[in-house]
Structures are given as structure tokens and as C-alpha cells.
């Protein structure tokens, strides 16, 4: 989608190019005039196309007219609309034709998106390349991404030029250009087609441009940066076989106007016959019969307007929504043996190792360089003090398109053996045998307790009864439950998300339909994520079936809100039935909206999906943590202690995601850098806090009750409620009346319903704003803290909501630390202070002073919260292990244990023997069971490392740690025998 805003192209002129960046003067033309040329071209092309196309997609027409206007620049919005219909494809070479530049770029980003590359490396790499070849790296001098482009060979002074990328709030653009893109892929794809501010369009390396199949691209991608030194890259471009039929090529020889027009006509024909490929033609290196480098200084290339529409993000695997007629006959490509060559070349390259990147090696860059991960076991053994069993895992030969997940060993490595003592989450000792305690392995509650806990946790509405809970959960861990679908379902049954959704759908007052929050809280997450929920929910919630209602509810919130206002009726607690017709209408609207999802929302959605995918490393960490919290509700010393561990987990997962290769494409290519942390934070709320919300609330309340604090708070609130404003310190300003107090109460109640601490804080700000408004309406003057804090205290007392205490706690501990200094942090502090004064109200009346205990708490809180700003390493929360006990004839019982990376199988076995109450542990052993095999694990091996190794394998695997009788061979499948399943203890 392209959309021009003439005001904008000039607005960038104030941007100065940094000295460090050499801007080639050659061929630079006024970007805006180029741009208008483009627009004209689009317009005429669209007109032509409409006439020519046999079957016009209505959505296409519509979109070419209803371009979304965005302030701040021309905006190319990635669309998820039309993709090519696979079912229509009957011809040879169809795969190649279906791959757009965007797709090629997206698939091969490990090759050209080399953020860790220095200028020297870029220089070295690109010098060997023909003009137009490029890579994207991050300039250390500029602290920005730059597009490094090989210029014409004879311009010897500056063979490489670096074009800085501007990252705005939601867009990427090249310095000096008025055209913005939603992400880096769209940007690069565009510049492969149009030169805009560049001297000439970018050029894809031959191997990428000419790849005919996904597989070929995968092979290229697997080489990562190593591609540039590989034979695949240096493959002579003068291949004896032209890879592309001439009829589809905008002939590079033609440079004068007339011929250009002709070429464009030709392309239109091609477009008519095949909507996808023309876009890449100009940039595909021509076969040898055509002159090389003939693009240089050539005219501005055209962008096929269909480019962005027909090629949505290929990584999203969108189902084809529509397809255009394809005529393949005249496009018969000349076959070549290239794919075979590729295989050969790649095999040669496999052993080749690349020098490490200069910057701290994030796991993913290391991964890129390792086309085939070595078997995890031995590799880890070399890098680890203790040795690993040699044949723990049998690896099926696989060539996988996905890069292997990060080696969890990276995370494990960073945890020293003494790590457990510094764990932020020291769990109180449970009654255990002393030697077991020494292992620092804490076993989870058994399943009966879990079931009880869940039923206590206020989840009765949609939670399956405990009886059914148990078997389904066991499925996920015992060999019988191998199917992925079942496993996932059972995982979800442990999650509280479903009850969450239900709760939302039952509470019409649920106010995500907030007005945007004040700027101190980033506004957009608040606004966006409510919509984001709506967009994402269809897919997410299918697992537990109640999602649709919740989803509709989310979409309907604005309606509810306006209704509520107009009628002025309090809807709290009531159920609200929506007319079906309305629902239908809104779901349509929402369907349209979801196609306009921003990269930010898509990223959050992807992370949320990843977090539920237990076959991913990230997903297994999150799911393990969630089930650990659910199963171990009483192992914390206080609510704050508990919330801290949750906060720390989220912070660590953010750090992990920043480095992880599991997010593919990397987040830097989708989200401007200054937004990454915020986007990750939003994603973590969704991944962690959303499923845990009700459990967290229950845990906090338990502490409140058990410590007696709740009772005391109730009493103090009752006393405080009787006080007049003056007695609370209010001097002069007019307090809210009972109607306003009720309104505020409703806002506080709504606050309880959201899981995101930021949204909660935004609601708190709305309350404060209301208080200010009432104060000011009655006097017209500005009120500072001298007047506001007493008034807030009075209001909190009048609201008489003991549960507000845990709400404040939740916000204070879980809010993104970077927001604590801002407005949200200020009013949160004030709310905490007001609550603290009320808690000590009676005392205060006597002593006029807070107890030293309360003071201490404040002190500690601050220390803790500021300490958290240092980013922790990824480790502590990987320390969960789910073990199933398998008994003959009686199925499985599973427990989640806390097992640190250096805990041995032997230690875990004795823990299991204790926890499962096995009278004869000498007859039991730990087995690793996966789809085909079952292997007994040697006593001195480390289950966490084995688990990490398994997760780093390219293919997603279901596996379980099963504790069972050694003699129980009848449970083993024949494959085990062949594998020699029982590893001798060393």
C-alpha cells in the first residue's frame, strides 16, 4: 500500500546526514518528484490492470482507493490480503514464480540482516559483490541501522555506501526519503525495486534472486553470514542457462525513455498474466546474455502496485484469501541444474566455520552460522565441566527450514553452580529429608493439591473439574500423550486463561475501551493491546473454546461504553446480552482491522503464540513457569516476594527474547529499536500475566488473609471512612460527592479486571484525573500534592475497598521499571502512600507517624525496584522439570520439580522416590521417552541439559522424563532394544 502525503516528503530535509556516512551524489534525484512519478505509474498501472484482469479481486480495488492515512509520512502498510492461490498452481516452476522479493528477503534475512557486522566486515563482504548488493547492519558510530550498498565498481573512492535507516515510532525509512515502511523487510524489498534516494535499486545476491524453491532459499538462509564466503554466493553469475525467460524481464539493456515505456508495457502484460513475479524482475540479475550492471544510473524503476498486496508477510503463512488467474504458458522457465548445485555447494560448506561477530554474540547469530547443529549432547559436554552422556538423544537426520532454537546451554552456561544460592526465588524449605534439601530441589505439590488449589482459586466457571484435570494433564507427560494437539490442550487446561476470558466476557464494565493514557505511560500499549487482544484472540482462544465470546466482547467495548454513559446505568456485575446482529457486524469490522495489524501487534501476537508452543524453548520456559506458579502457590514468604519473582521472570524472558533466534524474523527488523522493550513488555504481560492473573490474585489475597493484614485493613478502612475530609488533611478543596465516589469505585473495580499493570495504572490515572477535575471545577486553581494527596487518601477511604491494597501491590511490583519515574509511577506511589496512611490510620492518630515497619517496607521496595533495572541473565527460570511416574497398569502421575542445571539424574531420582513415595527406589530409574524411543538416563547426567539439548534440536519433539521401574521392559517399544536404551553408568 502506498500513500502519498505531499507535506511529508519535505519534512525530512532537516535531517542531517552524519559525516560518517558517505552519500554518493551520483544519480540522486529529488525523492519527492520520483515519488510522484511512482504514484502516477501506479495509478496508470492499476487502471490497466483493472481492464486487463480476467477476474478482479474486489478487495484489491477497494484497497487501492481506501488508503489508510497516516500522519508522518508515506506509509507502506504490510497487508495480509491476497496471496497466491496454491491450489491453482498446476505448473512447473510455480514455486519460484510465487516468491516475491519480499518473500525472498524474509526467508533469507540471516544472510543480509547482519546487525553485528562492522563497517570493515561489510566492506570486505560487499567488495566482492556486484553493484547493488547490500546488507543491513548496525553502525556503532551512528548507533543506527544502515543499509550498506555496493556501488559501481569504478567508483573506487567509495565502493560501499552506507545509508542510515531512520526508525520512527512505528516505521522505518531511509534517511532523506519520504517513504516509510512498517518494517525493514518492506523497506529493503521496496528498494530492490525502486531506487528512490539510492543511486540505483538494490540487487539481491544471485543465489537468492534465482532460487526457485523455498528449499533453496532455506539453504541459503542457513548459511547466514557465511553465505557471502560460500561457493553458493560466488557462483558465477554467468550461468550457462538463463534462469529467467526473457519475456518476463524488464530488459536491462534499455535505458532510454521509449524503451522504458515499452518495458513497462511488457511488464504489464506479464503482470496481467502472472501477478506475482514481475516485481522482482528488474532486480533479478539477468542471465549472462544480458549486460551486467546495466541498472546503474538507470531510470527509476517502477513498483508494481500489486507488490505489496500480493505478497503479504510470507512468514505469517496466511491462508490464501483470494487468487488471481494465472497464465503460465508463456512463462515457462528454462530449467537448470541449479538446485542440485546448491545442495552440493552447501554440503561442502557445512563444516566451514565463521569467525564470531565482533559484538557480543547473541545466540541467534551464532546459530545462523551453524547450518546443522551438532548433536546437543556431545557439544555440551565439551563446554561444560561435567560430562554429558554420549548418546542421550538419537537424532533423526533432518534438514530443517527453521534455524535451530537457541542453544539453551547459553542460558545454562551463564548460571554458575552457585547460582541457586543467589536465586531471587528462594523457596522455603518443605519438610523433606535433609539430603534432599541439600540438593536444592524442591518438589511441586502433588496433583491432588493442585486440583484443590485450582478449585480454590476462584476458577470454577470453566475449569474442568479436578477429576478430569488430572488425566488430561498426565497425557502431556506420559508416553501415551504424544499427539501435539492433545498435549497443547492439556497444557491449556492448566492455564487460567480460559477463566480469564470468561470473566471478561461476563463483565461488561471491563474497560479496555479506555481513552488513551497519559503520555508517561506509553499510550499505545494500552490502546493497542486491547485491540491487539481482539485481533489475536480468535486464534489464541480456540484452544479453550470461550475465546470467541471474549473476543466479541473486546470488540464491543466501545459500544458498551457509550451505552453505559448515555444511560448512566451501572453495569457492574450484571451480565450483558448482545444482540446477535451487532456481534456479526462487529466481527466483520474487526476482521478488517486485523488485516491492518501493525508490526507491533503482530509481534506481540507472535510472541504470545510462541509462548504457548511448548516445542519452542521460550514456550517451554513460559509454560513451565506458569505451571510451576500454579502448582506452588504457597512457597513464597510474602506477596511481594512472590510478585518479585514474577517480575523477574518477565524481565528475564524479555532479555531472552532479545537474543533468541526463536523470534524469526528478529524483532529488530520489525520494531524500531526504541520501541522493542515496550513491545516485549506488552508481550510478556500477555504471555505470563494473562494466564496467571487469577492465580496471582488468589496468592496475594491468601497472604493478606493469613497475615491478618486484611482484617486490620478492613477495620482501619471502616474508621477512615467515617472521617471528614478535613480530618484527612484536606484543606479547602471540595471533595467528590457520593456520586463521584461511586464512579471512582467503578473505575477501581474495572482496574481489577485487567491483567496488564500498565492498563491498571492507566485506570488509576483516570481516577486521579477525575479527582483533580472535581477539585478544580470547584475552585479553578491548580492543586499540587499538598492538596491532592490528602484528597486521594480521603477518596480511597471513602471507596472502602480492601482489595485495592493488593491491586496497588500488583502494580508496584509488576509495572515496567522504566515507567516508575513517570506520571504513572508518581500516582502509584501516591496511591500506595494513601493506602499506607489508611492502614496505619488508628496508629497514626495516636502517633502521627508511620510505623517504622511501613517505612522499612517503602525503603526495601525502592531498593528492589531500582535494582531490577539491571538486566538479569537468562537462567533461573529454566529450572523446572516435569517428571511423570509411570506405574504398570495405573497410568501416569506427573509432578513439576524445581531442578537446577547441575542436578544429576541420580539426585532427581531420589527426589522422585521421595515425592512419589516409592518404597523400592533401587528398582526405578529415569527414562527419556520420546515418540520412538525410551532411554534410561545415566545417574550422573543432567536432565536440564538434556532437556535443553532436545529443545535446541531443529525439529520439534515431544519428549518426557518418565520415572519408572527398570524391569518394566514391556513398556518399551522395540526401537529401544535396537538403540541400546540403557546407558551404562560411568
Amino acid at each position, binding site marked *: 500500500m502506498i500513500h502519498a502525503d505531499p507535506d511529508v516528503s519535505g*519534512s525530512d530535509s532537516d*535531517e*542531517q546526514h*552524519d559525516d560518517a556516512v558517505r552519500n554518493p551524489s551520483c544519480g540522486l534525484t529529488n525523492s519527492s518528484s520520483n515519488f510522484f512519478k511512482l504514484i502516477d505509474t501506479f495509478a496508470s498501472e492499476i487502471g490497466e490492470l483493472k481492464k486487463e484482469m480476467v477476474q478482479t479481486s474486489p478487495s484489491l480495488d477497494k484497497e487501492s482507493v481506501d488508503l489508510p492515512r*497516516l*500522519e*508522518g509520512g508515506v506509509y507502506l502498510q504490510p497487508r495480509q490480503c491476497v496471496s497466491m492461490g496454491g491450489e491453482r498452481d498446476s505448473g512447473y516452476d510455480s514455486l519460484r514464480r510465487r516468491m516475491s522479493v519480499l518473500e525472498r528477503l524474509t526467508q533469507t534475512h540471516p544472510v543480509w540482516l547482519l546487525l553485528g557486522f562492522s563497517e570493515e566486515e561489510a566492506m570486505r563482504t560487499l567488495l566482492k559483490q556486484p553493484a547493488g548488493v547490500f546488507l543491513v547492519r548496525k553502525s556503532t558510530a551512528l*548507533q543506527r541501522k544502515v543499509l550498506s550498498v555496493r556501488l559501481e565498481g569504478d567508483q573506487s573512492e567509495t565502493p560501499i555506501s552506507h545509508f542510515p535507516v531512520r*526508525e*520512527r*515510532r512505528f516505521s522505518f525509512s531511509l534517511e532523506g526519503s519520504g517513504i516509510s515502511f512498517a518494517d525493514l523487510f518492506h523497506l529493503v524489498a521496496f528498494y530492490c525495486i525502486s531506487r528512490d534516494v539510492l543511486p540505483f535499486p538494490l540487487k539481491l545476491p544471485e543465489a537468492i534472486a534465482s532460487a526457485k524453491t523455498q528449499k533453496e532459499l532455506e539453504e541459503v538462509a542457513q548459511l547466514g553470514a557465511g553465505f557471502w564466503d560460500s561457493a553458493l554466493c560466488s557462483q558465477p553469475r554467468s550461468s550457462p542457462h538463463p534462469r529467467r525467460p526473457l519475456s518476463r524481464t524488464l530488459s536491462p539493456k534499455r535505458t532510454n525513455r521509449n524503451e522504458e515505456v515499452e518495458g513497462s508495457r511488457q511488464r504489464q502484460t506479464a503482470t496481467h498474466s502472472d501477478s506475482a513475479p514481475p516485481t522482482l524482475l528488474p532486480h533479478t540479475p539477468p542471465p549472462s546474455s544480458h549486460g551486467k550492471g546495466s541498472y546503474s544510473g538507470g531510470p527509476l524503476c517502477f513498483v508494481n502496485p500489486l507488490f505489496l498486496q500480493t505478497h503479504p508477510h510470507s512468514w505469517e503463512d496466511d491462508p490464501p484469501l483470494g487468487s488471481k488467474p494465472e497464465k503460465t504458458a508463456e512463462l515457462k522457465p528454462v530449467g537448470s541444474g541449479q538446485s542440485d548445485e546448491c545442495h552440493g555447494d552447501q554440503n561442502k560448506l557445512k563444516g566451514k566455520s565463521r569467525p564470531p561477530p565482533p559484538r557480543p554474540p547473541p545466540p541467534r547469530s551464532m546459530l545462523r552460522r551453524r547450518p546443522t547443529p551438532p548433536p546437543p549432547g556431545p557439544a555440551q559436554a565439551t563446554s561444560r565441566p561435567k560430562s554429558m552422556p554420549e548418546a542421550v538423544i538419537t537424532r533423526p537426520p533432518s534438514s530443517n527450514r527453521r534455524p535451530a532454537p537457541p542453544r539453551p546451554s547459553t542460558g545454562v552456561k551463564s548460571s554458575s553452580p552457585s547460582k541457586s544460592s543467589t536465586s531471587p526465588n528462594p523457596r522455603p524449605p518443605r519438610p523433606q529429608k535433609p539430603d534432599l534439601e541439600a540438593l536444592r530441589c524442591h518438589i511441586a505439590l502433588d496433583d491432588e493439591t493442585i486440583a484443590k488449589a485450582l478449585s480454590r482459586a476462584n476458577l470454577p466457571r470453566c475449569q474442568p473439574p479436578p477429576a478430569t484435570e488430572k488425566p488430561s494433564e498426565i497425557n502431556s507427560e506420559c508416553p501415551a500423550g504424544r499427539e501435539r494437539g492433545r498435549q497443547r490442550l492439556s497444557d491449556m487446561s492448566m492455564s487460567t486463561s480460559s477463566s480469564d476470558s470468561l470473566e471478561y466476557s461476563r463483565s461488561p464494565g471491563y474497560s479496555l475501551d479506555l*481513552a*488513551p*493514557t*497519559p*503520555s*508517561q505511560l506509553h*499510550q*499505545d500499549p494500552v490502546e493497542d493491546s486491547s485491540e491487539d487482544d481482539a485481533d489475536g484472540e480468535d486464534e489464541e482462544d480456540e484452544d479453550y473454546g470461550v475465546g470467541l465470546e471474549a473476543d466479541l466482547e473486546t470488540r464491543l467495548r466501545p459500544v458498551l461504553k457509550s451505552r453505559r454513559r448515555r444511560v448512566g446505568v451501572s453495569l457492574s456485575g450484571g451480565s450483558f446480552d448482545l444482540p446477535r446482529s451487532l456481534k456479526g457486524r462487529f466481527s466483520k469490522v474487526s476482521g478488517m482491522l486485523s488485516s491492518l495489524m501493525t508490526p507491533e501487534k503482530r509481534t506481540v501476537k507472535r510472541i504470545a503464540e510462541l509462548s504457548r508452543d511448548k516445542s519452542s524453548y521460550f514456550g517451554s520456559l513460559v509454560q513451565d513457569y506458569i505451571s510451576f506458579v500454579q502448582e506452588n502457590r504457597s512457597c513464597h514468604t510474602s506477596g511481594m516476594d512472590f510478585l518479585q519473582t514474577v517480575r523477574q521472570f518477565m524481565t528475564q524472558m524479555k532479555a531472552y527474547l532479545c537474543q533468541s533466534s526463536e523470534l524469526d524474523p528478529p524483532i529488530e527488523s520489525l520494531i524500531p529499536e*526504541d520501541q522493542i522493550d515496550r513491545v516485549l513488555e506488552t508481550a510478556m504481560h500477555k504471555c505470563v500475566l494473562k494466564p496467571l492473573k487469577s492465580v496471582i490474585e488468589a496468592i496475594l489475597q491468601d497472604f493478606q488473609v493469613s497475615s491478618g493484614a486484611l482484617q486490620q485493613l478492613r477495620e482501619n478502612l471502616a474508621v477512615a471512612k467515617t472521617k471528614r475530609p478535613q480530618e484527612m*488533611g484536606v*484543606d479547602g478543596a471540595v471533595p467528590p460527592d457520593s456520586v463521584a465516589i461511586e464512579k471512582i469505585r467503578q473505575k477501581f473495580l474495572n482496574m481489577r479486571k485487567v491483567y496488564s499493570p500498565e492498563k491498571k495504572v492507566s485506570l488509576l*490515572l*483516570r481516577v*486521579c*484525573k*477525575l479527582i*483533580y477535575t472535581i477539585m478544580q471545577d470547584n475552585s479553578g486553581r*491548580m*492543586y*499540587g*500534592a*499538598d492538596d*491532592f*494527596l*490528602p484528597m486521594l487518601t480521603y477518596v480511597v477511604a471513602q471507596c472502602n475497598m480492601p482489595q485495592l491494597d493488593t491491586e496497588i501491590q500488583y502494580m508496584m511490583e509488576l509495572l515496567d521499571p522504566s515507567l*516508575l*519515574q*513517570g*506520571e504513572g509511577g*508518581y*500516582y502509584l*506511589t*501516591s496511591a*500506595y*502512600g494513601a493506602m*499506607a*496512611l489508611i492502614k496505619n490510620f488508628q496508629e*497514626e492518630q495516636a502517633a*502521627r*507517624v*508511620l510505623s517504622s515497619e*511501613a*517505612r522499612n517496607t*517503602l*525503603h526495601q*521496595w*525502592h531498593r528492589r525496584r*531500582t535494582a531490577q533495572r539491571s538486566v538479569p541473565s537468562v537462567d533461573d527460570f529454566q529450572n523446572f522439570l516435569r517428571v511423570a511416574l509411570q506405574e504398570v497398569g495405573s497410568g501416569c502421575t506427573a509432578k513439576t520439580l524445581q531442578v537446577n542445571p547441575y542436578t544429576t539424574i541420580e539426585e532427581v531420582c531420589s527426589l522422585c522416590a521421595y515425592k512419589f513415595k516409592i518404597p523400592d527406589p533401587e528398582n526405578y530409574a529415569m527414562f527419556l521417552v520420546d515418540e520412538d524411543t525410551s532411554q534410561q538416563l545415566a545417574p550422573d547426567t543432567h536432565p536440564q541439559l538434556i532437556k535443553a539439548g532436545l529443545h535446541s534440536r531443529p525439529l520439534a519433539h515431544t519428549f518426557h522424563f518418565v520415572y519408572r521401574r527398570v524391569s518394566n521392559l514391556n513398556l518399551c517399544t522395540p526401537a529401544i532394544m535396537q538403540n541400546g536404551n540403557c546407558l551404562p553408568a560411568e
Partner: protein
Amino acid sequence: LAMAIRELKVCLLGDTGVGKSSIVCRFVQDHFDHNISPTIGASFLTKTVPCGNELHKFLIWDTAGQERFHSLAPMYYRGSAAAVIVYDITKLDSFQTLKKWVKELKEHGPEDIVVAIAGNKNDLGDIREVPMKEAKEFAESIAAIFIETSARNAVNVEELFQRISKQIPPLENPDVESNDSFKITRQPASTARRCC
């Protein structure tokens, strides 16, 4: 070129009625920057001022001056880069309170906190109770910034914050900073805050 914004938490201390929030309101409202979205109320205000190669965004935390709220002050001044302690030159008591705050900050405040002492209401010189000399000497003894202001007449308000800005040590490593803060971008109007 984008300039890094550095956020600086500033805490306002002082007796109730000395004009803490008046000073800040004056500071924020003069030369009002329309690009910066307003805050919901006067207890928390922000203002961005250039300082050398940096932009300093003051996040100004007002505190309640009444005795009963004193115990909450640590939450407000912790993490502050600077504290402005305000007294009323026409009220000796408020100067005594100021001395208590100085003492508390020395004992419990952040180590490198910049302390500024502001004698407000200097437009009421004829009923002055705190001699300027005495206040100035006290400020010098604790190496604090000293300035007499008049929020009402907008006297020395800008200067107060400029002097604070100058005392904030510049960041040594701009690279580190660029991770912590954000670049200035022209914010689209659509993100302007709406509130209830």
C-alpha cells in the same frame, strides 16, 4: 540530528503553603511546549530543557508538606537526581522545616542528589522573616544551590532549574544513554492524550 532525552526525577520538598507547586507550575507553564503532552494534574509535572548536548526532561514529583505525610517522603525523593527544598521567606518556621529536610536527605537521600534551596515569595520582601544572608550561608555550608524566587512574579524560576541542570553531571558514555532513553520524534497528533 536526534538528541537524547535524559529523564531526571526532581523531588519538591517543603512545608505546605510555601509555594512548591506554584514554582513548578510557573516553570512548566511559561514557554509552554505544546509538543509535550500535559500531565493530569499539578502534583506531577514535566518539562524538557536543553542542556549542553543533552535534553533534560524534568519529572517533577511534588510532595505533600503536611507533617502527617512526612513519612511518605522517602518514596518520593528516592531515585531523584535533584531535590528542590522550598521555604517561604516570610515564614521562619518553613526555614526550620527546610533544615530538617536537608538533614533527612543527607542521611537517607540518594548519594549524589543535587540539592537546591529556594526561598519563595521574595516579592513580599517587606514582611520577610528569613534574612537572605542567613539562608545563603546555610546553603553554602551544605554545598546547595541557593536562589530566592517569586512564583507570582516569575522571578528566578527558570534560573532555579537551569542551575540544577548545570549541576547534573553529563553522561560519560553516550552509547549507554542511547539505550536508556529515546530519540526525539515528532509525535503524531493522534497520540495526544485524551482523558476522561
